[in-house]
């Protein structure tokens, strides 16, 4: 009992909370990956398998520069 009280007082609860948060996210990822193995029916958004080989011909190919933007952030002074 005394040992438990000492443990509770000395334990870094922030450390435990962060670990639990990582654990919850990890558990959710594991569940998502396992459920996705049970799913194999998906709509096809494109028709890439049905493009005639060699039929892509570009008549015009232009890259036009528009403008630039520069952002700056002051460095931390040590």
């Amino acid at each position, binding site marked *: 009992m005394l040992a438990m009280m000492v443990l509770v007082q000395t334990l870094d609860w922030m450390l435990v909370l962060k670990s639990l948060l990582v654990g919850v996210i990890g558990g959710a990822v594991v569940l998502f990956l396992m459920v996705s193995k049970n799913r194999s029916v998906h709509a096809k958004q494109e028709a890439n398998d049905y493009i005639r080989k060699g039929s892509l011909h570009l008549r015009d190919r232009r890259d036009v520069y*528009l403008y630039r933007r520069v952002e700056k952030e002051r460095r931390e002074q040590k």
Partner: protein
Amino acid sequence: MQYECPNCGGKVQFDSASQQMKCPYCDSEFSVEALRERDEILSAQAQDDMNWETPETTWEQGEAAGMHAYVCQSCGGQIMTDQTTAATKCPYCDSPVILSGQVSGELKPQYIIPFRVDKEAAKAALRKHFEGKPLLPKVFKDTHYIEEIRGVYVPVWLFDAEADACILFKAEKRRTWSDAQFHYKETKYFNCVRTGSIAFAHIPVDGSSKMDDTMMESLEPFSFDGAAGFQTAYLSGYLADKYDVSAEDSIARADQRAKQSVELAFRETVQGYDSVTLDVSGVKLKNGKAVYALYPVWLLNIRWNDQLYPFAMNGQTGKFVGNLPVDKGAAAKWSFIGMAIFTVLAFVFQLIFM
């Protein structure tokens, strides 16, 4: 004439200090030449113009002799088979079917892809589909229903087309550097124009309302190289569904997929940038042609917990698809195990390195 800002859409104005066009809303600056060229591109965008030619061939007198038509008493689906093959259950909803008469007077398929994968391979594929699925309920794997797999020719519309497109992309190049006082991040913005053409052959669209479209697309690709001119002899031993979704009603789906592929193909020619996004797309389809064909699919329905689970296998390539149920107890168990492992690893990692 007023130009719109390519960044925020506001009206840009001439800035005498920089001698450039400047947007008063987002402070972006552009050369007059760049804005004029962009405006020309936007004005010249081709509007979508999808026109398709659809088939008109029907069964001739006597051609369908010996073909029986069945009707499902539950879903109303109509299937046909040759006179040597008996149909007792609907391949889509598992309900009994009744003989409704001879096949005649309807649109005849022009092509058929014969079955290349036999029933034994279909059964093996189903068993394999259940393997390595820890969340699959154990009782689901009872394979006594495996004999009920049926080979069905599913009606599809196949669309050929040539696409002409003019597509505008927004692209960015980024770089960072620092000096003694500041960190700098520069982003350069570009408009990338791609104009050209691309052709498609045999885009399939499911012509049966009873066959789930998503499931049929999951089975792709089907290779038309394996197709033959339709003859009733190919149907022997198999069921064949009749189309009940017209070519006109299927066109929209083919359009959508073709357009997406055109944009993706053109997008791949925009290279050397850190990010590329689609801005304006104009795709014009021409010389559109649709043909009616039958594609081979092995079908099986499994009823479990009052829910029907359909499974399908591509009868040409052997690709197997079908969503499986999830055992909630197993899901909870594995989630807890995963959570425990990650919690312990995170705890130890923080103790050692922080």
